[in-house]
């Protein structure tokens, strides 16, 4: 079977559209927080979560019980909750004799579980139960059953899922397993000792070749060859399977979406990989969602045929449709039986009747089951209503309701239970808004008589809030917040690493490369490092582990004992064993054209010398510069002769011609490669203009344009933990899930350059000569701040260094003392030094599943001056971005903050929200069961979907949400019109705000009023900022 181009493109379009709903999954080396429902962001939040819940079979709001606990802890605004429930009740038809608002409020606050979990029962049946009679039940009708069955199991339902639901098989699970194994084979990034053959041909073709002769599939009884021989391309395979299964073309989109969503971790990884043009493994071994879907569908068809051979289960959708139409009672029972929703007492009789195929018994049992279900539902609803009436203080009200009023009451309760997730969410967010406004200040900071002792620029990360507060309290320090890549998107090439690491938010693509160079000579691997590498290789190869365990297993045992018994001392000893790392420099200046050309030529010359030595054994002394130049020019000119070289090496013309061709082909002395090298060299470093631009923009964005201190610390952040695949999730999101130190070093190097300062002075930013930018790293697990590149520090600054270090140490310890009680049970007051020691131990403890809470409980994103939140203790829950609207009349800086940092903050917030409300589907479950897969992700157990999202240990505590699931409350301190126009000017942010993915608050320093965007309009809050009060809404014009 072959496809026309148009058909192929159509299949690709279908897969592309389906993929849009699947969030990217980035390799975990650089964990990227993302919104699991990113594909739904064009929709309003409420609609998006409903669709996301249906597609991913997930919970999208916390349970009522969790919200009730939050209410008891003061995390939900009780009065706002009541107000919203009252407004909801007022919009419903009144029920005579029932105070609907009171009943619904009681339901929300006092009843832990939904009143109508199984849908709305018949009001007549409930009325009968309330009256003490047996309810009359309606027997099931065949047309209604057929319609329901067709909706559930045909249409967009993947065929294997339908078969499983109706026949109790586990085909979809088996298909997942086979697909995952295929993915593990292909996408492995060096974890396996033996790689899958033929991967460079692409996922589908490599898998197809292997699958046709794969004994594993044959042993399972899968006749995969028959399926694969039908077509060649992945697009054709998709069409072939869809047609073989009899799926109507109108349903293809829905089926493809469901198929991809079933393993959304793998699909998200493949989707990300397909567009990651600089990812080495993607370049070498290409794959996309079409490949993945083709593999999955081919396996699915083979599985279905295998199990359908005996005729017990339908092998195509047309057969299934015919069976549903012919025997609706049987299939209704089948669906209920396998879903576990039958009345328990009927389970055994139904199983027997299904086994016998006894149509009469099945029809009878269907009637009994339906009647029992209706009775049970009515009785449960009646009992719950009675209890609710008593709690609401109207115990006799139910007895006075007629059937119509009871139906109206049931409808209102059902509508409320469908809407209460949003009601609770708004009430919880209202509390967060109150808390921020109560703590905020609206006055201008008092003028400083002199410059601060030191200024520190921190990442906006929520964990910086605590240490900034303590640093400011420790002495004459001024702090600022900005995105941790310090506004400079770079691609870093670390010392000893061949690849590039982008250090910026993933929404940006860095253009400039910054390599790291060592001040020492050529890298020399220490003996210990070599030994460690050898041990790992022995451990990971195919045959050697057996002998390795016997021979050197004890070494691993010693390592284990050391890490377990005395982690701090043992790991410190191990660090001492490694060779000390020499200082390094970052190459931040761009090469001129001449410099780049000279480098390329030098590399070519070195290669030619090496080639001559290797091919002809001629040592350097016999190969003069002239000979090398001749060879180089001949190779580049596509010539076949090099007389001087021929004479020197005593070679005949054909041999010289062959060597020249080898230089072009094997040693890549050719124009194409030289151009590529020039292009690569062109990416290294920044021009002076770029450096001036980045430094100036960064300083202006945070409002730091004067009164520069002697020390200006650029504090990136990162975490340290042992045995933690999620370590990068604790690193800097603004640096692409990496440590922020390199970005700090890059900006410091730029800002310390006299040339840059001279140009900045011309632009009005006068950095005095004694101001020195010092890069530093805030270790968020240990709460320490380490200064870097101190060898570059002017000698005039050394006398102040002790004072600086003492201030940093004090802030570190106080931060640890504040943070530790939230992390582990501690005495009421923890000594700062003890707290710091415990934090340090957490970082080294390889059994610690929660070295820190990370960004959990994030709630606010504040864009404003430090003065705005100076008095606020925000418990490490706020992203703080410095911004002074007075320096930004054209709103450019604010738009930049909204475009980058706010969007990243929203991704982080949504990742935490959904991981907290449904940790199994949107999060990654418990870390305890995680295994690293292919060196890019983790799976639960030995085989599962790639676990996306955050682990339970990051967002849950004792099984309940520790992270408070709220949408990000973004507060801008700026004149209302200024902020509003900035938001309207950034389409992506405008969409997020209008669709309710971010709660936006504008605090106007001129009018001293706060404005909140809600339900499609701006509302002026009728309360002063900085004083606790109740929240009232007034819609503005």
């Amino acid at each position, binding site marked *: 079977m072959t496809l026309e181009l148009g058909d192929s493109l159509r299949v690709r379009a279908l897969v592309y559209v389906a993929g849009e709903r699947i969030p990217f999954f980035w390799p975990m080396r650089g964990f990227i927080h993302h919104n699991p429902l990113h594909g739904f962001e064009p929709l309003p939040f409420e609609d998006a979560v409903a669709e996301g819940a249906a597609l991913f079979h997930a919970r999208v709001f916390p349970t009522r019980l969790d919200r009730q606990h939050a209410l008891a802890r003061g995390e939900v605004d009780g009065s706002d909750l009541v107000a919203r429930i009252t407004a909801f009740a007022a919009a419903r038809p009144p029920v005579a004799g029932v105070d609907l608002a009171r009943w619904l409020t009681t339901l929300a606050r006092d009843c*832990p*579980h939904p009143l109508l979990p199984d849908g709305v029962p018949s009001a007549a049946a409930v009325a009968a139960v309330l009256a003490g009679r047996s309810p009359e039940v309606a027997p099931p009708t065949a047309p209604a059953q057929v319609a329901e069955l067709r909706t559930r199991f045909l249409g967009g339902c993947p065929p294997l899922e339908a078969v499983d639901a109706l026949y109790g098989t586990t085909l979809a699970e088996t298909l997942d397993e086979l697909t995952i194994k295929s993915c593990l084979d292909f996408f492995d990034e060096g974890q396996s000792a033996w790689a899958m053959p033929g991967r460079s041909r692409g996922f589908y073709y490599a898998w197809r070749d292997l699958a046709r002769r794969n004994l594993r599939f044959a042993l399972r009884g899968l006749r995969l060859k028959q399926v694969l021989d039908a077509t060649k391309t992945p697009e054709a395979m998709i069409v072939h399977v869809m047609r073989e299964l009899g799926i109507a073309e109108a349903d293809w989109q829905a089926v493809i979406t469901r198929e991809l969503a079933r393993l959304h971790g793998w699909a998200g990884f493949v989707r990300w990989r397909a567009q990651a043009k600089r990812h080495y493994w993607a370049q070498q071994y290409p794959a996309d969602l079409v490949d993945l879907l083709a593999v999955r569908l081919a396996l699915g068809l083979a599985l279905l045929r295998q199990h359908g051979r005996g005729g017990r289960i339908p092998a195509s959708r047309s057969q299934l449709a015919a069976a549903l139409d012919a025997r609706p009672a049987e299939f209704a029972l089948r669906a209920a039986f396998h879903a*576990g929703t039958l009345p*328990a007492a009927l*389970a*055994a009789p139904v199983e027997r009747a299904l086994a016998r195929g006894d149509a009469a018994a099945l029809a009878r049992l269907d009637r009994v089951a339906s009647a029992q279900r209706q009775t049970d539902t009515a009785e449960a609803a009646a009992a719950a209503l009675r209890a609710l009436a008593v709690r609401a203080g109207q115990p006799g009200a139910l007895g006075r309701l007629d059937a119509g009023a009871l139906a109206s009451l049931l409808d209102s309760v059902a509508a409320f239970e469908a809407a209460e997730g949003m009601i609770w969410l708004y009430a919880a967010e209202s509390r967060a808004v109150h808390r921020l406004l109560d703590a905020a200040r609206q006055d201008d900071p008092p003028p400083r008589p002199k410059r601060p002792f030191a200024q520190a620029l921190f990442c906006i990360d929520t964990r910086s809030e605590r240490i900034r507060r303590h640093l400011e309290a420790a002495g004459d320090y001024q702090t600022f917040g900005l995105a941790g890549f310090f506004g400079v998107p770079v691609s870093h090439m670390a010392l000893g690493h061949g690849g590039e690491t982008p250090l910026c938010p993933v929404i940006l693509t860095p253009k400039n490369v910054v390599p790291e160079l060592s001040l020492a000579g050529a890298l020399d691997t220490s003996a210990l490092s070599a030994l460690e590498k050898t041990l790992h290789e022995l451990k990971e190869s195919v045959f050697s582990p057996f002998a390795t365990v016997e021979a050197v297993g004890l070494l691993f045992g010693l390592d284990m004992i050391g890490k377990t018994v005395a982690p701090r001392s043992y790991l410190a000893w191990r660090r001492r064993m490694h060779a000390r790392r020499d200082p390094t420099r970052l190459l931040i200046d761009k090469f001129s054209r001449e410099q780049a050309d000279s480098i390329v030529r030098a590399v070519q010359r070195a290669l030619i010398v090496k080639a001559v030595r290797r091919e002809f054994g001629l040592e350097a002394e016999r190969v003069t510069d002239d000979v090398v130049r001749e060879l180089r020019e001949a190779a580049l000119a596509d010539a076949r002769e090099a007389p001087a070289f021929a004479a020197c090496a005593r070679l005949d013309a054909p041999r010289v011609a062959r060597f020249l061709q080898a230089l072009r082909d094997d040693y890549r002395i050719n124009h194409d490669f030289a151009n590529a090298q020039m292009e690569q060299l062109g990416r290294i470093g920044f021009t002076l203009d770029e450096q001036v631009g980045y430094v100036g923009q960064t300083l202006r964005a945070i409002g730091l344009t004067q009164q520069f201190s002697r020390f200006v610390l650029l504090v990136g952040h990162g975490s340290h933990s042992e045995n933690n695949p999620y370590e990068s999730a604790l690193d800097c999101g603004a640096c692409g899930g990496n440590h922020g130190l390199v970005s700090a070093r890059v900006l410091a190097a730029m800002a310390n350059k006299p040339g840059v300062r001279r140009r900045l002075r011309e632009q009005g930013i006068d950095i005095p000569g004694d101001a020195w930018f010092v890069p530093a790293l805030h270790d968020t697990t240990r709460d320490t701040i380490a200064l870097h590149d101190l060898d570059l520090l002017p000698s005039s600054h050394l006398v102040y260094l002790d004072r600086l270090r003492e201030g940093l140490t004090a802030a570190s310890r106080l931060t640890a003392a504040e943070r530790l009680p939230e992390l582990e049970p501690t005495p009421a007051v923890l000594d700062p030094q003890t707290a710091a020691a415990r934090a340090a131990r957490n970082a080294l403890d390889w059994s610690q599943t929660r070295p820190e809470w990370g960004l959990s409980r994030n709630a606010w994103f504040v864009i404003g001056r430090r003065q705005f939140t100076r008095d606020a203790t925000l418990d490490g829950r706020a992203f703080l971005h410095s911004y002074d609207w007075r320096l930004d009349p054209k709103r450019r800086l604010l738009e930049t903050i909204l475009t980058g940092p706010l969007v990243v903050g929203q991704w982080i917030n949504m990742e935490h929200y959904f991981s907290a409300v449904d940790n199994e589907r949107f999060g990654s479950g418990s870390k305890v069961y995680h295994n690293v897969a292919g060196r890019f992700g983790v799976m639960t157990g030995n085989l599962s979907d790639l676990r996306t999202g955050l682990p339970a240990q990051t967002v849950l505590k004792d099984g309940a949400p520790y992270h408070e699931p709220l949408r990000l409350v973004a507060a801008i301190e700026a004149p209302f019109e200024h902020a509003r126009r900035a938001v309207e000017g950034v389409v992506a942010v405008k969409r997020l705000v209008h669709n309710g993915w971010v709660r936006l608050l504008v605090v106007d320093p001129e009018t001293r009023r706060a404005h909140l965007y809600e339900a499609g309009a701006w509302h002026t809050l009728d309360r002063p900022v900085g004083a606790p009060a109740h929240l009232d809404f007034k819609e503005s014009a």
Partner: protein
Amino acid sequence: MNPKLILAACLLPLFPFSLIFNAVFAWIRPPLARAALLLGWPLSGLWVLAASGITPPDWIVPWALATALLYALRALTLRDAGQWLAYLSVSLGALLWVQPEPALAWAMSAPLALLALVLGAIVKRYGAAFAGYPDALAARSPRLAGVFALAVLAAIGTPPLSSFFVWLSWALTATPGAAVVLLVVWLLWSWAAIRLLQGLLVGEALPEAARPVDLGRAGVWLAALALVALLAGGLWIAGGRI
């Protein structure tokens, strides 16, 4: 065939005579009556055998092994815990032909009787004891789930409870070929037990799922006492007979 032997084949059930026991077991519903049946049926068989003075023919042990194997295999696909218990009783009852001694019958049947009582407690609370109905028993009724798990383990011959020593005694008495079949039967029953436990105990209960009153402390203590008795019985068998 001797009528008394046929009667014994009904009471120490050999296929197809085992169908009688299964029918009687399915017909009787009260847990106590089922427990009495599980205890009395094989003992009656041994009494008939002893009273008649018949020496079982050589071909009866292979027949008994085949019956035990058949029911063990069939149990792998069962979801109804009551039927599972009946099949286990048949399988074990048939194996008494290997070593027809009353002490072993007691040691083998007592855990089955305990399991019948526990299943009765589950059915009383949830309406059925059928894999998936209820599911997540461990989350909904943790005490009952614990007692149920221990009772199942006791029934299938987990050391050091009495039924384990029964299996051991049979294996040591049997010919090597028969011993292999015995071990296979034992393995199959262990597998079937895990499937049953998985079907009933494991899972996450929805917050709104029914949570009837769990087994009381008295019930737990009684079950614990029974298990201790089974343990003591096992030790007695081990000390006195093996």
